[in-house]
């Protein structure tokens, strides 16, 4: 079979591709899964949290740091860290803002799940199109929108030059590959530690398990919710930076759409509400995409991922690592 021959022949290369791709999906998926764990809500607007980080990165690199070409030496880590910090912060703030305006009023009222989903879709549309209108020529309520994004993709200056470091069974591993996977693992460890060891993290776990009891035990639900959104936003922000650096992507208002859907599928695949599940789901989905491309060609794209998702859900509706079932 041609497919099998291709997959075997390209195995190590595509595995590397899948791990890199998957790390980015995993980080975005963390945001989806955490919010779901705490609020039982799919945050459709999370893809826009991802998008905001790419736009911020664009401006941080080109305007704050004035980067015009790849950097070397000490400047590179500094600029990277600066960009990462700014982008992550921006994403975190976006996530918290979405929670405050699109979800909290519904939560306070005890609205049914469907309302949250629809409000989420509304938030997603709003932010996407707000950014698409931000080209200095459109105005909203008599304020002219600043020229931050607009309708044309804007290339983010390349700060890092790709260097091949070593090979694994014939598959070249570059410094960018290591950066992406390394940052993803680091973020996951930090998040895991936070959730397991800190007080606020315990609060998150408590609310995820049983919000009524948690609130009775003195956990401030609002604070937990805001923290959850903020952390998810930070993760998505980091994912945005890595996405741009890995493939030299241009910032664009719709950039979050596809990675968002795939990451959400990854979260569901791994078992939504489960942090480790999100990581697993992300990596798995990345691998499915890469090896699927080797098998049948890339023109089928997302179809593979969705087929796998549907397949898994039919056999195990709660996802691979299961999910914390709430009454």
């Amino acid at each position, binding site marked *: 079979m041609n497919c099998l021959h291709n997959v075997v022949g390209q195995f190590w290369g595509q595995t590397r591709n899948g791990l890199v791709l998957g790390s980015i999906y995993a980080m975005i998926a963390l945001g989806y899964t955490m919010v779901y764990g705490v609020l039982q809500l799919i945050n459709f607007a999370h893809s826009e949290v991802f998008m905001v980080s790419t736009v911020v990165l664009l401006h941080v690199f080109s305007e704050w740091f004035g980067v015009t070409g790849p950097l070397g030496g000490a400047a590179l880590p500094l600029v990277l860290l600066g960009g990462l910090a700014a982008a992550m912060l921006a994403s975190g703030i976006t996530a918290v803002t979405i929670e405050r305006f699109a979800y909290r*009023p519904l939560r306070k009222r005890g609205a049914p799940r469907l309302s949250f989903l629809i409000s989420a879709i509304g938030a997603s549309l709003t932010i996407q199109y707000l950014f698409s209108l931000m080209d200095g020529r459109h*105005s909203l309520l008599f304020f002219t929108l600043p020229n931050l994004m607009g309708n044309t993709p804007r290339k983010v200056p390349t700060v890092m030059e790709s260097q091949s470091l070593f090979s694994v069974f014939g598959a070249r591993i*570059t410094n960018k590959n290591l950066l992406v996977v390394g940052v993803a693992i680091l973020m996951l460890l930090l998040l895991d530690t936070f959730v397991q060891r800190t007080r606020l993290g315990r609060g998150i776990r408590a609310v995820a398990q049983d919000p009524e009891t948690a609130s009775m035990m003195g956990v401030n639900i609002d604070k937990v919710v805001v923290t959850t959104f903020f952390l998810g936003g930070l993760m998505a922000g980091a994912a945005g930076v890595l996405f741009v650096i890995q*493939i030299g992507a241009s910032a664009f208002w*719709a950039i979050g759409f596809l990675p968002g859907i795939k990451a959400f599928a990854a979260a569901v695949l791994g078992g939504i509400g489960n942090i480790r599940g999100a990581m697993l789901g992300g990596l798995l989905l990345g691998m499915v995409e890469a090896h699927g491309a080797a098998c049948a060609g*890339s023109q089928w794209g997302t179809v593979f991922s969705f087929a796998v998702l549907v397949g898994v859900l039919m056999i195990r509706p709660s996802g691979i690592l299961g999910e914390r079932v709430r009454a």
Partner: protein
Amino acid sequence: MRSSRGLKVFAVLAAFTMLAAACSKKKAGGGGGGGNRIEVTVYGQGAWTGGANTLVLPSMQSAQLHFDELNKEEGYPATITFKQADTQGSGDQAPPVAQEAAQDPDTVAIMGPAFSGESRATGDTYNDAQIPFITASATAVDLAEFNWDYWYRAVGNDDAQGRLAADYVADVLKPKSLFILHDTTDYGKPLAETVEKGARAAGIKIAGKTGIAEPAINTGTTVNFSSIISQIQASGADTVFFGGYDVDSGPFLSQAAEAGLHINFMSGDGSVSSVFLEQAGGTGSEGARLVAPSNISADFVAKYAAAEGGDALSVPIYASEGYDVAGLIGEGIKQAIEDGAASAEEIRAGIKKHLDSLTSNQPYVGVAKDYAFDPDTHELVTSADELYYFYQVRNQALVNLGNATEVLG
């Protein structure tokens, strides 16, 4: 409490904004002009904004240039207002835009549609409204098969482009094996497949073929080519032909360079733009070959650059052709009015009559070439291999290798 009141204020302000936006209708420019010049409107349909606009703006700017010249010309019997019908190149955004253009009572002709997909989506609208529409850049072959009476193509089509690209690959690049890559759009896929067919006929081994599921031309999002690059590496191909647009070919080359993939790269007219050069980067783009039915270093280009100044695009693809289409329309308007046309309908009919009257003996002489249209297909009668130009990227600039007759002999 604050939320309810804030909502009321917001609602009022929002309503005001919408009203203000709606009421600020832009009146048609028109411009007086001396004498009894008839006011006509021509719409330019294409990607004025959006990621694909570097492929369309040069032709539109040149058209505007020519219309301005005509408007200033003594004794020219009309004042032409050139309006934007911005579709961002998308066939799905096109129909309402085309409808508006078609329903404008002053419209006498359409320049465009610039892309093939939007041509398919809007051709019937213009044809049924009997408005002549001339494209300076839509190269898909099947556009001629719709039997649109009012459609004319002022450039060569993808059958020729694909054939010549295949010839170039076979005669000049002489690869060990060829990998066919396309962007699954209605422009890139047929072009790539035409090249594939030609290459096979020439005896070249096809190492593989794949398409991009969600190309940037559709989604605006840069594609991650890592899995495609791995496929190409595994196939052992030393040459890749890419059918698609600059927003995809550029990132492909830059990612390929980073992945250490060293191949000969060739693409079609969709990649001939500054976006391609910018996205591909220095290392990625070096040595890439391109083919297009347009000469970007023609004499006219100097005039275009001087006229546009800072707005001129550095890769003025289809600029000459855009200028010429404007000339065709302008000439048609003049002929129509001289023959007695006064209303928009009459002028449209007059333009069509003029276009149909061009023959290879009595063509319209433009800056790029001579124009005469085949009575059945409305394609260029005067199309020949010498109208296709090959380019190579050296030091992030496009070098004109010459036209097909010169290069392929």
